[in-house]
């Protein structure tokens, strides 16, 4: 991650990734999207794929994600990013499209599109930000909202009898033969952030090696709609989300495992 600038008398250890625009994020204070965006940017830098990467944005708080990366990008209709990315990859196998989707986008309205991108084994990468809530529209229940959790459409807490059970996306998608790499990570601590980045990087590498569908689910705080302070949100995440959504690698096909061995943590 360190970048040596020989002309200066100092080493820059952390700074905005080169593949990212200077424009500040529109997110709320302490929003996990900001961390995830930066990780994606760092991975694009490190894999040197800015010129080939295509940011396939979805609809949610990350709606205009294409504005933050210095790569080509486009907007998808709500839930359809995997279809859009599929087409781009099929038409241009040299490009590196990735979708950036929230839990409402991917796990509610976009269920069919992500399932079938996985079933087809599309050679694309999905960054799936699970904050257990519909952030953009003001905090309604998402498919991933926890039981008993408050949301503006489950003000007495989500009850399974009325509103069903949270969906475990990684577990579900791992049953599909076309998936090559599926992992769940989070960003609620420096160690977790480091792991999240490794997973995102491996997902992109999976695409670069043409191994099939790669997806990283990132458990991410939404302090605004969780109604807690940003710092507390990190604890809330650990306490409430992790038990329902265990971290880990859910699918690592042999070729990806080999790749992983090969590159180590680089």
């Amino acid at each position, binding site marked *: 991650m360190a970048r040596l600038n020989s002309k200066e008398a100092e080493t820059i250890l952390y700074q905005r990734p080169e593949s990212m625009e200077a424009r500040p994020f529109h997110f709320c204070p302490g929003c996990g999207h*900001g961390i995830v965006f930066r990780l994606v940017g760092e991975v694009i830098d490190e894999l040197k794929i800015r010129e080939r990467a295509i940011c396939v944005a979805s609809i949610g708080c990350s709606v205009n994600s294409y504005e933050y990366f210095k790569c080509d990008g486009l907007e998808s209709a709500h839930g359809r990013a995997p279809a859009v990315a599929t087409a781009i990859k099929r038409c241009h196998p040299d490009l590196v499209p990735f979708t950036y989707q929230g839990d409402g986008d991917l796990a509610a309205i976009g269920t069919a599109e992500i399932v079938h991108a996985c079933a087809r084994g599309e050679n694309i990468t999905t960054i799936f930000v699970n904050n257990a809530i519909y952030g953009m529209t003001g905090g309604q229940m998402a498919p991933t909202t926890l039981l008993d959790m408050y949301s503006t459409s489950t003000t007495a807490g989500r009850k399974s009898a009325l509103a069903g059970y949270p969906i475990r996306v990684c577990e579900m998608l791992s049953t599909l033969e076309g998936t090559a790499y599926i992992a769940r990570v989070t960003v609620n601590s420096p160690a977790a952030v480091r792991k999240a980045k490794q997973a995102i990087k491996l997902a992109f590498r999976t695409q670069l090696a043409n191994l099939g569908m790669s997806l990283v689910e990132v458990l991410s705080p939404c302090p605004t709609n969780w109604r807690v302070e940003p710092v507390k949100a990190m604890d809330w995440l650990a306490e409430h989300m992790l038990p329902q959504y265990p971290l880990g690698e859910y699918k690592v096909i042999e070729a990806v495992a080999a790749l992983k061995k090969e590159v180590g943590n680089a």
Partner: protein
Amino acid sequence: MVIDTERCKGCHLCIAFCPKEILRAADHINRMGYTPAEVEEKKTNECTGCGICAMMCPDIAITVHRLNKPK
């Protein structure tokens, strides 16, 4: 390390995660109306450049440099 206080949204994650506990909330608000993080003056030297604050910052408001040791 340098905090771009006009980018900072005052989430204070950096403060919470700095292992050296050298960051704190400023006593003023920035142009967006947020209370930015700042380094406690006395502790500037204690920064190890570990980069954890930058790693946790959701708004890419932190840059971490290290003065190169003269050879």
